Structures are given as C-alpha cells and as structure tokens.
C-alpha cells in the first residue's frame, strides 16, 4: 500500500500551533520498543493496568496553564484567597477544586520591588500537576544553566526587561517544592471579573519569564 497521506504529515502544525513529534508512522526506535516492553511487562505482572495508563495520560492532558491562570485570577480579585495562596499554594489550589496530587506548591508574588523567576538547575521540576508538562526550553541545558547566573539577560531574551531598582529573585526547585509566580496585576485590568482576568495570565508569566498580556 502506498504511503498514506496523513493530515499531520511533514511540516504540518498541531491545533496548538506546534510541530508534531515524530510519531506512529516513522520507523520504530529502540527507546519506543523499550517503552512498549516496559508497559506490557508491568501490566502482565499486575503492577499496573492498561486502564491506569490511559487514565493517567488523560489526567495529564487535562492539566494546563489555564488551571494556573484561574488560580492567579482569583488571587487578583479575592484578597482573602491571595493570602491563602501565599501561605499554602497547594492547599489553596486544591480548595479551588484542582486535583494536583501530592504536589507541594509555593506561590511567589511579583511586586513593584521584586520579580520572581523559576528554574530547576538539577533536572526539570515544574508544577506539572497544576500547569501540565513543562515547555521544552524549561528543560534545556541553556535555561537551567544560565538563569541562576544571568537571570536579567535570560529574561531580556524572553522580552522582559527588569528595572535596576527591582530585585530579581531566582527560585531553584532543588528538592520537594514546586513554584508558581503570582504576577503583578496589570493596572488596566482593575475591576475585571476573575473569569475575564484569567485570559490575561500566560504560562510564561507563571514561570516568571513573561508578564500578563491582554487577550488576543
């Protein structure tokens, strides 16, 4: 049979505007063989079930920056919630109904005096149970190496210029805590509802490499 035309074939973009990863229709790699084998052995030996694998993928797919955006928007519009978030961000997120598993979360607040940015120099720790899987650059050697020694230059490359009278605070997720930045609320959004505010909160603003943006 001739090579079928797939609608996600070479060079096409996904609905989120990103290129697809090499997928089902390319030659089976050694590591893909290992994934299939580990999965089947764990299922055959009763350690996990196929349904659990399926459900876990669905659970991760449902986690996205939109969840974090709702948390941030609520903090902007509800001072009591903001206080709870800064005390225990994990509990505050759970109280909003988000299933973040056992994750320990700390929220760090941007102010007129402080700009926070998050990195994991040892691996790729990220608040994945709230925001979903991290972007590729977050896991890159360049981001992990440079953010702790030249954070202002890194931020500048992301389009964020920090004034010299603002302290940059880099959070290295070295151990058991995960971090979310609570960006400063843009002046022009004062008075908007939490639902409207959530559209202003970008993924990058919750990592600290971006600022909230007017919805397109």
């Amino acid at each position, binding site marked *: 049979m001739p090579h079928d035309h797939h609608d996600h074939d070479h060079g096409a973009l996904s609905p989120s505007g990103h290129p697809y990863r090499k997928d089902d229709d390319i030659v089976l790699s050694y590591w893909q063989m290992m994934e299939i084998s580990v999965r089947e*052995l764990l299922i055959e030996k009763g350690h996990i079930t196929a349904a659990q694998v399926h459900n876990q993928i669905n659970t991760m797919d449902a986690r996205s920056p939109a969840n974090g955006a709702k948390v941030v928007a609520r903090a902007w519009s509800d001072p009591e919630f903001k206080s709870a978030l800064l005390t225990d961000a994990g509990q505050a997120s759970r109280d909003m109904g988000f299933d973040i598993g056992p994750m320990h979360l700390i929220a760090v607040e941007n102010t007129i005096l402080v700009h926070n940015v998050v990195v994991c120099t040892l691996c790729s720790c990220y608040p994945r149970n709230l925001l979903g899987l991290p972007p590729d650059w977050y896991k890159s050697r*360049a981001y992990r190496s440079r953010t702790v*020694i030249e954070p202002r230059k890194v931020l500048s490359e992301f389009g964020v210029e920090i004034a010299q009278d603002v302290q940059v605070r880099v959070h290295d997720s070295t151990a058991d805590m995960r971090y979310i930045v609570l960006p400063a609320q843009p002046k022009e959004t004062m008075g908007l509802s939490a639902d409207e505010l959530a559209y202003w909160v970008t993924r990058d603003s919750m990592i600290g490499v971006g600022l909230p943006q007017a919805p397109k």
Partner: protein
Amino acid sequence: MGGDPAGNINHDQHDFALWEKRVDALMVLASSAGLMNTDSLRRVLEDMGEEAYETMSYYERWIASVSQNMVEAGAFSTAELADKMAQVKARGTTYGDAT
C-alpha cells in the same frame, strides 16, 4: 549545570507524541505502585552521564531510567525485558504496528 557556560535558549516547542506521554504515565504509575520514586528516577538519569544528555531526547532518557528502576525493584528481569523487546520488534516497523 547551574551557572555553567551555555548557549542560546531554543524556544521551539513540540507537542508530545503518544509514546512520550506513555513514558510519563509509566513513571507516575510505577511511583504510585512503590517501585520507584522521583529521586531514583533522577539518580539513574544522572548516572547515564553527559553523553546521554547530548544524544538522547528527554523521554528516551526517562524510559531508560524507568526501565533500569524496574529491574532494580524486581518488577521484571533483564532477560524478560530482552525477550519482550525482541517480540515487540518482530511485530512491525512502526510504533503504530508494534504497540
């Protein structure tokens, strides 16, 4: 890693393939089953060394670590893994055929 010389940050982004999502799920489920933990995942990744970081993708390194952890935990033997991989390879030439 932290503070080491490094080049520009590549902002390209890709959507995860099914096999990558499955690797992620296997790590989470094997941890819930008590067969491994985040530190044991990281320990094997670190022991794989610099070369693996340069030559393997993120989830390629992860499945290598998960697999090593499963052998260490007694979930299956290296012989069982080798047999299974041979069977998988015989199923076809693409991921879709073999899975």
